[in-house]
Every structure is written in C-alpha cells, then in structure tokens.
C-alpha cells in the first residue's frame, strides 16, 4: 500500500507540474467562444446547446488527455530509464503500474472536475436547474476516461510504440461509440468472415453505450440497475486491461 501511495503521489505531482490543468483553461476558452457563437445563432436554445456542447467538449478533452498521458506514462519512464531506479527498490511491479495509473486517472479527473465546475457555473448562470443530471453525465464521462486509460496503458505496453498505441487507442475510442451500429452490420452481414471480424472487434473494443446518460435524463430518474451495470462494466473492463498490462509488464527486462 505504501508503494502504491508513493508512486501515486509522484505521478500526480508530475502531471500537475506538466500543466495538465491547462486542459481546463483550454476547455473554458472553447466554452466561452462556443457560447458566444451559439448565443448569436440560437438565442432561444442557448442553454440546451451550451449544455450539449460543454459536455461533449469536457469529455473529449478528458479522453484526449487520458490517452495521451497514459500512452507516455510507462514508455517515457523506460526511455528516460527512470523505471530502472524504481524497480531496483523493493517495488512489486503491479504496485508500480497501479500507482502510475491511478495517479494519472486522478490528475485527469481533477481536470474533468474543474471543467465540470466551469461548465456547470455557466449553465447555472443561464438558469439551468438540472444539478443531479449533470453529476450523472460527469460520472459517465469519468467511467469512459477510466476505461480508455486502462486500454491505452495496455496498448502502450503491448505495442511499445507511442505512435502505434495512440493510433490504436483512438481507433478503439471511436469504435466504442458505434458498437450498436457495428453489431447491426455484423448481424446483417452475409459474409461469415466479415461477421467474425466485426464480432471480434466488438468483443475487444469498449462499449460506451453503457455510459449513455441520455436515457436517464429522458426518464428523469436514475435506474439503479443501469447505474450498477455501468459501474460494473467500467470496473471489469478497466480491471481486465490492467491485469493484462501487468502480465506484459512482468515479462519486460530493462
């Protein structure tokens, strides 16, 4: 536990010093600029458009941040050989990996929270009153960030190339938003080969449909089964990616 905490602390501090918080400033800028344009184009729908625009921007920036940071997380320490020194101390490798991952997740979550507060404040100033709904949307974004972070970590360790890991992470990220459509195409496909390929991708790619908060918003209440299923999915997917990452990392020689 002490090792995980020590690695978590230095990872979090490292990200803060590398100015991860700049993403929040960027988000604020996007939101203000977007809000100004939108208010000029659609004065009556300003609140709703600002809500959608803000949530989408919030999530996109957080996802870009987590993929970028996680892909570099271990590979950069291998390149600078800082990992040499860490692993020549009594450190179990999975403790190191978990500390690094959680430290990064925490840094991105702080950015996500900061962006959420800016956004919520702006919406509140415009008279929007759906505080509880906003929290649900925020938690869904966090779930996606955790899943993508774990996947990017696995890809970076398995592929050992930052460019390749970044490309594959982006590919799976996009794929994860279209699982319903891919399933439909796979079912309708006449070619067994195509069906197999699509189903294989479906089983590997994250399914972001689990984090679709629009239904909950539409109904007006949170279905506890949906919330539980989304949480279980995030934990299971991120956990599976992390276990595989540990398996790959255990085999590495430095």
């Amino acid at each position, binding site marked *: 536990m*002490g*090792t995980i*905490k*020590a*690695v978590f*602390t*230095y990872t979090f*501090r*490292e990200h803060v*010093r*590398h100015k991860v918080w700049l993403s929040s400033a960027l988000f604020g800028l996007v939101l203000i600029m977007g809000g100004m344009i939108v208010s000029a184009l659609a004065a009556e729908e300003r609140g709703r458009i600002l809500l959608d625009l803000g949530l989408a921007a919030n999530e996109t920036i957080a996802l870009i941040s987590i993929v970028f940071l996680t892909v570099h997380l271990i590979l950069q*320490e291998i390149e*600078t*050989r*800082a990992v*040499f*020194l*860490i*692993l*020549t*101390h*009594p*450190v*179990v490798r999975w403790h190191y990996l978990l500390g690094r991952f959680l430290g990064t997740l925490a840094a991105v979550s702080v950015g996500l929270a900061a962006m959420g507060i800016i956004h919520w404040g702006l919406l509140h100033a415009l008279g929007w009153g759906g505080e509880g709904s906003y929290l649900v949307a925020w938690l869904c974004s966090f779930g996606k960030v955790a899943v993508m972070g774990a996947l990017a970590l696995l890809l970076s360790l398995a592929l050992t190339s930052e460019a390749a890991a970044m490309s594959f992470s982006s590919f799976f990220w996009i794929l994860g938003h279209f699982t319903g459509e891919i399933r439909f195409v796979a079912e309708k496909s006449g070619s067994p080969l195509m069906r197999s390929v699509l189903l294989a991708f479906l089983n590997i790619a994250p399914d972001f449909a689990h984090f679709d908060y629009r239904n909950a918003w539409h109904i007006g209440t949170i279905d506890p089964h949906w919330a539980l299923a989304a949480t279980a999915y995030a934990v299971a997917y991120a956990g599976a990616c992390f276990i595989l990452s540990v398996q790959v990392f255990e085999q590495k*020689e*430095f």
Partner: protein
Amino acid sequence: MTAPALRFRNVGKIYRRSHLGRLTETVGLTGLDLDVEQGEVFGLLGLNGSGKTTAIKLLMGLHLPTTGDIEVLGKRVPNVDVLARIGYAPEAAYLNRSLTGREHLRLFAALSRVPAQGREAKVSGMMAQVGLAHALDKRLSEYSKGMLQRASLAQALIHDPELVVLDEPVTGLDPLAIKEVRTLILWLKGKGKTVLFSSHDISEVEKVCDRIGILSGGRLAKTMTQSQWRQKPDTLENVFAATVKRTDGVGEIRLD
C-alpha cells in the same frame, strides 16, 4: 564462516531480439561464477560490452538469467524483499526531473521501506550528507550533472543498505568528485558494508578494492586480490591489458 554477500553460479545471459521474423542472439554473460564476501569492496573491470552492466542488472532483478542462479544476501534473486537491503546507483542519474531534491528522496525512502516516522529527518540528513542541503527544494531539472550524481547516490544510501552496487560511479566526474566517491566507498567499507562497483578506471579500482574481477567477452577472465597488484606499480594495468580482448568491433590505433 558467513555466507557470501553475493554469489553467481554458472550465470549466463543471452539477449534475443527478433526483427521481421529474424532472430539474433547476443551473449551478454557466460558461465559466471563469482562470490563477493561480506564487507568486501569488489571491483568489476572490463571494456565496453564485457558484461559488467549485465551482471549488475541481473543481480538487481532488471534482467532474468538465461542460465544459472544468483544469490544476494542469502536469497535467490529476483526477490523483491532483498532489494530493501541493496542500494544501487546506476551509471547515469536516471531521475524524474520534475521532482525537487526533497521529493525525489522522499519517494525513494518510501519505496525502500524507510519507516514514515523519522523519514523526513532522514531525507534532510542524507541530502546534507551528499552536499545538497542547499538544493533540497530545487527541481532536479535545475541540478548540474554532479548534483544529479549526488542525488542518485543519496537514493542508494537512504535506507542504510547492507550491499551497495555502483555502476561506473566515477565515469564523467571531475577529479574532485572522483576523490569524493573514493572516500565514500572507503567510508562504506569502514561501516562494514559490501560494495560492488564496475569501472573502466583501473587507477580508481586499484585504490579502493580488496579484490577485482576482469570481465572479457561476457566471461570472468581473472580475479585478483589487492596483495597481488600492490607489489609492483602498473601490475593491474598490465594484467588487464593482457587479459581483455576487444569485442566492440574496433581495431587498435596504429602509430605507423
């Protein structure tokens, strides 16, 4: 009779690399048999590519041996717990430059299982001991090369290890810093620590080692005790030159 601090038994390491389906093998170390006794200062001498760093990485658990066994302080490695009793400083200071001197040492103290109570005092004390008390709260990115080397030494010694492993500790240092490293090694010996270090620098090895081992082409070609090289000047240098052979693919400089 106490068990040796360090024991290599028939240790071999072959690096295998695969590129486009073609497998290449490089021999890092072959059949290494070596004991380093407790309280001894042992120097590993050899040219580039002779296997010095490979031997050190194997004992630190960064590499796994292809053949043979390694025992450190009575435990077979790789063993995470035994690492708490070893201090290791690599040839270059591979430190996270975004941290301050204090944060860096606090991290390694925590990783080396230094108890939380009294850790802060130990961190400040160790930084003062390596002459960096004035730079405690400076970021490592602002440190000079010499300061980084000292910060690296500090992390190796913060947990008061029984065995200290120094990989090329004097490479690239100025004469004053070299003298300080020499003094440090002798101070560690005085405290009863076992010191293993690798070097190209024969004159340094002569001054501090009780015993040396000459590695050549991944093999332990010769071991000598201090009494054997102290009898005549230049003995160690002559033995070294006669023992090693170049494996880095370059020829001799011709003077004709």
